């Protein structure tokens, strides 16, 4: 495996975290997010 393929870009990490958080909200794990 090359050195670069072991890394995900900052953008990809941001997308993965966002989708993860959105799914947590969708399936009721994160019920209320106050602001």
């Amino acid at each position: 495996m090359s050195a670069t393929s072991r890394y995900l870009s900052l953008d990809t990490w941001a997308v993965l975290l966002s989708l993860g958080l959105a799914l947590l909200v969708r399936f009721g794990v994160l019920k209320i997010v106050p602001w």
Partner: protein
Amino acid sequence: MSASNAIPIPESGSQTASTSRLTGWLGLVPGLLLLAIVGYAGKFIEQSITRYGKSHHLVLPNIEYVLWAILIGLIIANTTGVPAIFRRGVATYEFWLKTGIVLLGSRFILGDIARLGGISLALVFIEIALALTFMTYLGRAFKLSPKLVSLLSVGSSVCGVSAIIATQGAIEADEEDSSYAIAAILALGAISLFVFPVVGHALHLSDHAYGVWTGLAVDNTAETAAAGALYSDTAGKVAVLTKTCRNALIGFVVLGYAIYWASKGQAAGVQSKGAFLWQKFPRFVLGFLVISLLATVGFFSKPQLLAVGNLSRWAFLLTFAGVGLRTSFRDLSKQGVRPFLVGAIGEVVIALLTLGLVFGADKVFHL
């Protein structure tokens, strides 16, 4: 994407490697806490002023938490400085910016994106063409090095620092040229944070018109989001959408410069244009569209949409704290005078041109 922007994926390995990786992740914690404290302090100040005004029946100006968070960050960065232990965590503000943008997709249905994004995209094409042409002539008139002119042109027409970093690699520009261009773009971004809202209010721009203008004219995405949010929540949302259209075109502009410099024999040729475009395409734009698509097809209930929107606001809160904390006037003043002058003149002209475009678009399309 630069190597410094990459986060290593945790993987199995020796215990020493795991420990050093853990230390690496733990090293982010102090800075992350600082971002959270500075951002929350801004929110606390905004809420305290509003509460004080209400309880004393006073009409106080509503200053958004964004400004307080940036000001606190600026004070820390330019007095005591940000101690080394916090720096790695503070640098994650760009990650929170992108997370905030992806989650912001929940506050747009695809129809809005198609309409507003379509108008924005048309304006972005005009803005990029005008900005690239003007900056190129201006840079030549000031006798800057040709590659520095390319970097400044890309930085001020497309998307600030990321565009400069992407172009630097593609056209094999000097580190020194790229740090001049980045410093100029960051310094001008810091100034626009304070100037744009004042001009917007003076001209009584609507939230949408101001958002589109900010998205077209402010270069670095973090500063665009902040300058928009300083005006209003809606303006912030629209500014980010317009800026995302600009960001989506980064690959095409960088490709153009890469081909130009390769034709002069001063950079490596581009083998596969499709692969080059995909490599430079910002992935968070796709994430933004996916979340918006999910919101449009009813994947989330209304309370869930509100919750996802609030997660986006928290991510932006960390970003705005980072904008202040990473702006050191001492470092910015070390840049060359001529690149800064070219950047400053260019930014003023681009701001005026885009303001004209926005007025025109507002008349025709009722932004």
